């Protein structure tokens, strides 16, 4: 049995220690934001935040993240609410600025990779609130174990959405 903390909640899971975190999240905890894209840490569809850093859950053994804070796409609104000290009532109706921007910019096409894109954007904006275009490109290509891949080619929309999210975050909500 492994105990992990996901989106602020301690969860006990029965899966073997070497089970990739992705399958635990999706099959045991019903957290379906992360998607299976390659199982090889080559695309980013499965990304989650582990202690604020983007990680590929498809190659991360569940036992390896015991004791660390895991955030999935589902946990982004609460993460933002906590960072901004929003009330429970406000938090309930608030998406993370990255999610808001992704909707306002109509970023996804099929959307299958966008979990990882939003996770990467959150990681970036938490450390660099006003990234330049070059910094955004760097974040989505060379900062992680592989570039974050989108087959629909939504990169232009992602770049615009990251900048839009930065504006929302600067306003504070």
């Amino acid at each position, binding site marked *: 049995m492994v105990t992990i903390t996901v989106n602020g909640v301690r969860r006990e899971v029965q899966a073997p220690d070497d089970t990739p975190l992705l399958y635990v999240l999706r099959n045991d905890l019903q957290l379906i934001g992360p998607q299976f894209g390659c199982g090889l840490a080559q695309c980013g*569809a499965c990304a989650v935040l582990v202690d604020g850093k983007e990680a590929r859950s498809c190659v991360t053994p569940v036992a390896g993240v015991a004791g660390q804070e895991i955030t999935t796409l589902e946990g982004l609104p609460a993460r933002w609410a906590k960072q901004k000290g929003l009330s429970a009532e406000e938090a309930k109706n608030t998406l993370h600025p990255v999610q808001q921007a992704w909707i306002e910019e109509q970023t*996804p096409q099929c959307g299958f990779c966008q979990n990882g894109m939003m996770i990467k954007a959150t990681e970036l904006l938490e450390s660099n609130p006003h990234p330049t275009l070059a910094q955004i490109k760097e974040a989505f290509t060379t900062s992680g174990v592989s570039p974050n891949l989108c087959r*629909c080619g939504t990169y232009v929309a992602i770049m615009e959405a990251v900048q839009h999210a930065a504006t929302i975050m600067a306003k504070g909500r």
Partner: protein
Amino acid sequence: MATMSEKPQNVFGPTLSRRQFVKAGGALVVGFSLVGPEFLKGDAGKAATFKNSLDPTLPSSWIEIHPDNTVLIRTGKSDFGQGSTFTAYRQIVADELSVTFEAITTVVAGSTDQTPDGSGAFDFLGRGTPNIRKAAAYTYQALLDLASEKLGVPKDKLSVKEGVVSGGGKSISYGDLVKGQQLKLTIPVRGDLTGIMGLTIEGNPPMKPVGEYKVIGKSFKSSVISSKVAAKETWATDVRLPGMLHARVVHPKTLGSTLVSAGQVDKSKFPNSQVIVKGNLVGVVAPTEWEAIQAAEQVASGTKWTEWKGLPGNAKLYQHLREEADWTSTPVVKSDAAKGDVGPALESGHRKLSATYQLSYMKHAPIGPTMAVADVKADGTVHIYAHNQNPQALRGEIAMMLGTTLDHVIVHAYPGPGHYGRSNGGNAGAEDEAVILSQAVGKPVRVQWMRADDMQWSTQSSVSFSDVQLAIDKQGKMAAYQIDHYMPAMQDDRPIGAVLAGLPTMQAPNPKGAFVSSTANGIEDPWVYAGVSNVMERGHGTFQVGQKASPLAVGLRDHSMRTPGQFQQNYPRELAINEAAALAGADAIQFRIDHATDERAIGVLKAVRESSGWDTRPSPRPDAVSTGSTAVRGRGVSLMLRSGTYWACVCQIAVTPSTGAIVVEKYAIAVDPGIVVNPMQLKRNVEGGAVMGIGHALFEEMMFDESGITTDDWLAYPIPTMADIPEIKVVLLHNPKVGSYGGGSEAANALAAPAIAAALHDATGKIMRRLPMKPAYVQALLKA
């Protein structure tokens, strides 16, 4: 595939005016019917005889108007990221019904028991008149009839605003009109529900005049984007049924290997796993996904297959196609654009070009590998939960595989990764395998392909080559143009699990195959240079590479991919036109304008010339160089007509001769679809297609050896990353006088390749007539 293209002059069929409809139109209303029941005898209405299907002749199968004035629409077309069903379809229906966008609260798409018409997730705007538009137009007339009766006001004295009918000083809302009654309306349909095109609504109901559009033309957001971004959408990957087992498939060692013996599960390690063997299909099922993955790997290592080496391999591919492929097997298709006498005109040309252009195999490469959940019930009913571009076609394929009828098969459609055409004929790979395994174990089974399965066992976009001959006269005009396109069959819709298991499927592509299963190579790229006097375009088809040699009858299976067939034909044409302009000493955009007569083609060329800051001059540039380690710059242009939409693009590149590396720096696209239905969604579709096009042009090449596909992951098959993104400018030309709207989610991916190749010529003076333009290939060209 025979042909899915249309002649440019016939893009939009005739429509009846409102007045004509009133005369003939009573025929469409049950009770006043002139042709109703008789009309429905042939093909029409056939689907209504199946259980678990909607009756397509009933208006409520398409559009429901509720007493609270909300509206629900149904379409067989699943969304694959284009967003059309959630935006354009709502907008089109809203305008035809005279309701608001917001009144259409529900879009039901894809599932075979909940939608009426089938067909694939392509051509959403249906040459300007998708089924849903006609359904709305018919419904509108029936609502007016009902209101006329109820208010006692003649139909032609009624007007409708936001779902309220008014006339003669009285008014009533749609909700109140329909309370407790069915519309008196029969929707006339024709076609084959499980065929690739599905059912088509017949007749010509009056359509809302363009000038009265209130909803079309605005940038409404897609509701499904909101639910996906908020992790509130149920994807196909999320479906979990009680008692469901996870499965992985051990695919054969090669594309021609048959099973010698299946490995055994090591029960000490995987006590709950089980091997299922059906013919050459080997599956491993387990209660948890991780156990299924590990047990399948262990079983694979103990599974023995025959050896097979029946493919030419990449290095000999073009030699094989040129010298060994049987192009006489299949009748040659001649273009409707053929005219004049090409032979003498080529002979007497002042300057001549004779060249061959090659495209490689490319993968659709969805970002998520194919998966499906199947539940074969004890009573023989089959439920499939999947992300599929053509659920009704899948339904037909599964019924055929199991020797059952359509009544027993239900496909439940869910969102998933884009397939870019791979499943438009009804299967992406995992669906039939899930059914076979579920039937074997008597439980629901979820088959998930791994990345390597998806790269090596899926279909691919077909390879092709084209021979061009053209001549320029003394005045610098193109006097003759001749092109011969050679492409193996591009649509193999046989479900691979059924093939491996030895179960019934449709035939492999063959010369006698109907429509999409034909080996015929139809002309897919409408000719746009009507000013040329002597034109010949021919399409030559044959069997897929390895199809006949493989003991499995598999080989390299092809499938239509975004801008199918047309990409393979437009790339050689447009690159050849760039070369023709250079031969004539003319500017490549002006040369096109001088040979086009269609003002919309000329319009997109002028728009892209302006937006790209094009300097008018011939190519190559005066200071072109093909050596050195300093980047040199060039620009090129391309033009296409597809699905009623005109496209032109200009790419500006920097190429470093010593390394052969090309960077696209600026990319301008002009699009004239006629009426722009939703500018924001169209712009996003165009940008995405443009980015995919950079991959097609520069990186994408499926590699294979004598036994099978060696491309097995994202390192072996690179696609564009954010680092490859140039400055992209999209110019949308809203052109209401066209009177209808064309498609926008295809074509953009095909534009870059000829434009980048032309830009390479502009920069270096050397022509590369092969895709992709990988650094090593470019380097070799420039050194030669």
